[in-house]
């Protein structure tokens, strides 16, 4: 039993923290959010230099074979700094699809460039009307000679606009919600028929709806076996879920620190408001939520790294996501409330943390969805 981060993990975390301190202070972040792309090429380059992009990649692709646990402390730092870069889309989702499902050629074609920061990817899976049901895909891929032609619409594809290629899921057989019949494809950006409709999201990131009209791809675009992509999608989404759980822990940590600091410095009725017992007890409950969330984030990351049985893995990840979602809502709402009016203003970081926590609470499934999955797997 050991809850310390390894030396490598601590070194990485330390360098990430230095990076965000130097290149990601609140004002810089505002400028990045306001920019056209909504992301920072310089920060992406630095993340590459620190090995953050290559860390979870396999060594044969220039990576370090890192797992979710190795990324935890870095994800926490991202959460504290409210990083809006396409890390989740590129490294945690699309690259993982290729790494876990792709051929040697596909891995070599993309993963080394992801690790060096020269290629970005996005994951075009979710569709409107699916809610959180990963099996719900209506987009179809029809045989077309040696290749396929893809038609359909994807929704809220994170950071799709900046990506060199999309990992797209589509039905090669079956009906919209069948577990079988799902396949995945690598679609280079700019492929004719791919139309992006980008927008900003509540947590100040970028995403896009994607129209796929007669998109022709070759046989080499197929990722993994036809009709069998769902388990791969579930595995990758669980991995990404574990990472945002760790990110949430960092955001919660910031929210608790900022709120505690505010309670100590804000004076009303001639005393720091932190001297009022009602607020003290609520602050304590925030800290308890934070500790419980941290424990479950560790469980989620350890499970996606080590748990071989998919049902057990999904059960653990769902348990974690339920607790994290509850903690996100509790901490976000209370920390803004305890900040009073100022907590709602754009100029206070806490209001931005509130928005990211609000999104994480629902991302990859809200508490209801994961309670249902948890019970079904128990």
């Amino acid at each position, binding site marked *: 039993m050991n809850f310390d981060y390894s030396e490598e993990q601590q070194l990485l975390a330390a360098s990430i923290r230095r990076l965000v301190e130097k290149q990601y202070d609140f004002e810089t972040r505002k400028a990045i959010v306001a920019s056209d792309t909504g992301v920072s090429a310089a920060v992406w380059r630095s993340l590459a230099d620190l090995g953050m992009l290559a860390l979870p990649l396999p060594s044969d692709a220039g990576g370090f074979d890192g797992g979710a646990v190795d990324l935890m402390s870095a994800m926490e730092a991202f959460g504290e700094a409210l990083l809006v870069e396409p890390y989740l889309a590129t490294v945690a989702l699309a690259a993982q699809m290729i790494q876990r499902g792709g051929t040697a050629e596909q891995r070599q074609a993309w993963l080394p460039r992801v690790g060096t920061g020269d290629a970005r990817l996005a994951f075009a899976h979710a569709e409107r009307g699916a809610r959180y049901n990963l099996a719900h895909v209506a987009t179809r891929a029809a045989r077309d000679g040696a290749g396929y032609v893809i038609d359909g619409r994807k929704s*809220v594809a994170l950071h799709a606009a900046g990506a060199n290629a999309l990992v797209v899921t589509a039905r090669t057989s079956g009906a919209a919600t069948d577990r079988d019949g799902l396949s995945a494809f690598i679609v280079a950006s700019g492929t004719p028929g791919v139309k992006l409709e980008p927008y900003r999201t509540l947590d100040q990131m970028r995403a896009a709806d994607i129209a796929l009209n007669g998109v022709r791809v070759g046989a080499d675009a197929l990722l993994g076996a036809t009709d069998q992509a769902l388990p791969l999608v579930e595995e990758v989404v669980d991995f990404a879920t574990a990472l945002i759980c760790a990110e949430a822990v960092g955001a919660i940590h910031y929210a608790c620190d900022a709120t505690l600091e505010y309670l100590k410095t804000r004076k009303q009725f001639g005393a720091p408001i932190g001297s009022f017992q009602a607020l003290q007890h609520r602050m304590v409950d925030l800290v308890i939520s934070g500790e419980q969330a941290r424990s479950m984030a560790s469980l989620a990351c350890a499970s996606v790294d080590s748990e071989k049985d998919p049902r057990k893995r999904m059960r653990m990840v769902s348990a974690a996501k339920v607790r994290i979602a509850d903690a996100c809502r509790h901490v976000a709402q209370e920390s803004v409330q305890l900040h009073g009016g100022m907590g709602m203003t754009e100029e206070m970081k806490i209001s931005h943390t509130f928005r990211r926590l609000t999104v994480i609470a629902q991302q990859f499934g809200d508490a209801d969805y994961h309670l249902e999955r948890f019970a079904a797997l128990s």
Partner: protein
Amino acid sequence: MDLDYSADDLAFRDQVSAWLREHLPADLRGKVTHYRRLTRDDLLRWHRILADKGWIAPAWPSEWGGTGWSAVRRYIFEEACGYAGAPPLVPFGLMMCAPVLLKFGTDAQKQRFLPRIYRGEDFWCQGYSEPGSGSDLASLSTRAERRGEHYIVNGQKTWTTLAHFADWIFCLVRSDRGAERKQDGISFLLIDMKTPGITVRPLALMDGGREVNEVFFDDVAVPVENRVHDEGKGWTVAKYLLGHERMNTARIGTSQRELESLKALTAKEQKDGRPLLDDPRFRDRLSRVEIELMALSITNLRFLDRLRAGTAPGAEVSMLKITGTEIQQALTELMMQAVGPDAQPLARVGSDDADAYVAALSPRYCNYRKTSIYAGSNEIQRNIIAKMALGL
């Protein structure tokens, strides 16, 4: 015991509802029900429609345009407007400045301001909160120094709702820094927003909307005749206004309309091929809010009924505010959760009305966190109940 309105009051409610169906402009209603921003003109347009009808200031004395309605009918009217999706009435002139003038103002002040407020010719805002004085209002530090026939005002107000729309602002200022009790030495001034030295700086909120501001006063000269009540009696005026709370702080009508929208939304939203509304997990959360609202609507009538005994509302108003805002926040949260992943996009390309409505839900959830903070935070309201009603 009779839980429902009298036959006469029911007829009155029907009459109000019928009039609203006819005279509430569809575009204004659409903006309200679809959470689109109301412009200054939108607000004034609705104000003037009501003014023309004679219903803009029901609580005023009849010689100034009041309707002479009972408290129950005023409540019925306000809830009917909320339920119908009418734009909110900006309270600063009609329900705050006016009652103050009626109670403490000189005849000249009444003659000068009340008719313009009634007709919506002056847009008012409220200069209370300061960076250092939120819940602890009496610690305010904006100074007003007497120089001949003027006060020279310096300082800053914050969280000033709709100041960027306003022609006038009523302010609490410290006119005597020597006073022993901080409550003393405060005066109540009416200030023309066009006076040199006033700067309004928007305070952007996290939903991206603009509704509150910082207002800076730099050697702003305010004629002494714009002071209401005696110098140093500002706190008396402020306390009077607090005691003047209305009984619709729960905003039942609005929440009933929102509840219906939520049901319509979740009847359409599909989860695993069935309406989300039929999902027991979601439905139970919705039902508990619906039941809490049913209870609060009765509680609100019970408290209103107590006024017959002539007791001024006190802790009751705080209770209505706490529970009413908790319901409003629960409804906005359920709406955001109802649309699932579609709560993330802020604005979709070429999005239709339905998309725009969905995209407005999560910003609205963010925006509504204010309801438990403004107008006396729910913590302050609990303090008030503990002291006033429970004697703790």
